């Protein structure tokens, strides 16, 4: 996913370079004939990736879609090609909000939306803030940059299981600090079960996600000419004005891709809730990825689970398409 999106952003960049370069800039590489350039070359370059995508992703995905139309339970998994067709029954079960399965899926969808909103929002905020803070050169900047990337570099399982230990009610570090040392709570709180579990999930997700935002924004900041800040400073603009008028608008293309990627990763995140809560997440931290996993692989209703996956896929495609449409329109407007 990252590679694909990066390709997209590179495409935008090369687009600009080309348009700026029409004034006769020197080219190092031999000129590729326009016929090939506009015709087959892009497809040729994409061919290896598309072939691999077909093998690794598309074919299993098509099988997943086929499964969503079959009554696939433990009675048929030994010969799943022979599972009876059920038409849209699995989809009806998944979206019937008056029945428990549909109701639970809808609940899970809302939980995931709330979780994604806060997890992405905070990760983005921390990432941008840290990147801007480290924009200036000062002693220890390199060290801080390295330290900030640690959560991103750590293996997810090891990191999240450590958080799970820290969130334990009786022996965890979090309650030790909040309750024992600071006395902020009347009694030790539960974090891994009950109402607080959504907060625990958001905290871990933000901790894990913000270094990526930091990294991408930091790279984006390198492209903002220093002269802009110098000129603004001479004109009397303060730090906040510089951030609002120069930094954030310049970062807009980077942020558009960053937020999309963070959204997709966070909405689909399976590892964090699974390691934190196990296969049965608390009700108010029941993310859709875990919910679908449970429907498919724990209760062995593979057909219904596949139908839920297809619905999730459609939702994410629509959101992505709308997002790309809006942001590209905004960009065109800005370019014009």
């Amino acid at each position: 996913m990252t590679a694909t999106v990066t390709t997209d952003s590179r495409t935008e960049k090369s687009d600009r370079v080309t348009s700026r370069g029409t004034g006769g800039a020197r080219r190092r590489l031999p000129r590729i004939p326009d016929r090939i350039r506009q015709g087959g070359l892009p497809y040729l370059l994409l061919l290896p990736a598309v072939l691999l995508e077909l093998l690794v992703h598309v074919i299993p995905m098509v099988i997943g879609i086929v499964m969503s139309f079959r009554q696939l339970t433990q009675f048929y998994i030994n010969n799943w090609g022979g599972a009876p067709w059920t038409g849209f029954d699995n989809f009806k079960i998944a979206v019937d909000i008056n029945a428990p399965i549909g109701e639970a899926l809808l609940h899970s969808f809302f939980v995931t939306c709330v979780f994604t909103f806060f997890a992405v929002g905070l990760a983005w905020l921390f990432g941008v803030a840290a990147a801007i803070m480290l924009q200036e050169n000062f002693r220890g900047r390199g060290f801080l940059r390295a330290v900030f990337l640690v959560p991103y570099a750590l293996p997810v399982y090891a990191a999240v299981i450590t958080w799970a230990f820290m969130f334990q009610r009786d022996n965890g570090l979090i309650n030790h600090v909040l309750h024992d040392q600071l006395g902020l709570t009347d009694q030790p709180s539960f974090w891994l079960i009950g109402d607080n579990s959504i907060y625990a999930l958001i905290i871990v997700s933000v901790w894990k996600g913000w270094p990526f935002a930091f990294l991408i924004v930091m790279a984006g900041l390198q492209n903002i000419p220093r002269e802009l800040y110098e000129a603004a400073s001479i004109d009397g603009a303060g730090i906040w004005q510089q951030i609002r008028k120069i930094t954030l608008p310049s970062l807009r293309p980077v942020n558009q891709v960053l937020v999309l990627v963070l959204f997709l990763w966070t909405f689909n995140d399976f590892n964090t809730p699974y390691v934190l809560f196990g296969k049965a997440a608390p009700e108010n931290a029941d993310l859709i990825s875990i919910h679908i996993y449970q429907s498919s692989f724990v209760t062995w209703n593979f057909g219904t689970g596949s139908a839920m996956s297809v619905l999730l896929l459609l939702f994410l495609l629509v959101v992505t398409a709308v997002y790309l449409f809006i942001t590209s329109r905004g960009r065109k407007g800005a370019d014009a």
Partner: protein
Amino acid sequence: MRTIRAAAAATLAISIAAGVTGCGGGSSASGGSNDSPKTLTYWASNQGPSIEADKKILTPELKKFEKQTGIKVKLEVVPWADLLNRILAATTSGQGPDVLNIGNTWSASLQATGALLPWDKANFDAIGGRDRFVDSAVASAGAEGKDPSAVPLYSLAYALYYNKKSFADAGITKPPATWDELVEDGKKLSRDGKWGLGAEGANLSNNIHQTFVLGQQHGADFFDAEGKATFTSDGAVAAVKQYIDFMAKDKIIAPGNAEYAQNQSLTDFAKGKTAMVLWQAAASTFASQGMKPEDWGAAPVPVASGTPGQGKNVNSMVAGINMAVFKNTKNIDGAKKFVKFMTSDDEQKLLNKTYGSIPPVKTAQADAAFSAPDLAVLRDTLAKSAAPLPQVPNESQFETAVGTAVKELWADAAAGRPVTTESVKARLEKAQQTMQQ
């Protein structure tokens, strides 16, 4: 440029789609053969303290088998958390091991897939006959009225483990035999930061094991004769409420136990923070936590009144590990020979002694090694007062649905929210409604 963008967007869409719906599959192969008579693949469940320990224990035995038969066994020890998914994947792809361990509560569910060799009379005769095995263990190897889908390998039952020093300090002279006595003793023991009883509230399987037994004592099976879920019967509701009430009403379980799922209650027991736990074959865990055998005792799990037995006085589920053969094995004769070897008297004594379990083979069970006081309790429980979990195809769904309902009820109790007959029934009703088929 538009073409590049279109192609990139298509690739992006594919990546998203694949991230969400990836799923594999294959077709079945039917019937075993002897195309590969010199090798076998064996998936052993992780029984010992670690995978490495299991390899050390099993490898010499496999060498012994190779010496006897010339068949080389390739061993893979699979962690519990992965085992069921690995079996499902193998069932779907048809690329599984020849012989494997399964948890006995999964027997009927896996039997329904049709991927495992049924143990009919001929197959049982090939390993010495069905009569060699304890009845309750065979009963937990598949649905009633059908040929079992596996052969019992290691048997386990629940017992009440108690800390002798905590009991002496509280002036209690003998372990409780009824639930009333347990609550009474529990209240005496729950003081000065210590608690009477331990629980693993976030462990779905453990929740099921405990509530199933209490359900039996209340005359509830959780499924009717046709295999339909009856989670909201009066007996089932009373059983679940009784279990949660140990924390909510009787206050003999620490609220923190509601989030336990990694055997933390055993650590609390070993540290003297909790005086009693209901557990299966816990001796080796206690030893690994520094307890000496004289520090703890084992007694039968309490019943409502009288002594443990069948019917309403069932006090344990039949726990254990079974050995199954994939129907599409390419070494069917070798696989049966291997099952015969692993269920032979000598291997049964050796392996069950090592793992602290009870042999499901009657002759091996009679060995003096299994007469130590704690093992005698487990052995007698298995023989006289244990019942298998419902052997229905959707047992796996039952464990998840009811196990999760009980987990949520623990969370309510721990947070101080009221746990009433109505709230228990509502949770169980929701669990029942999620059962499909």
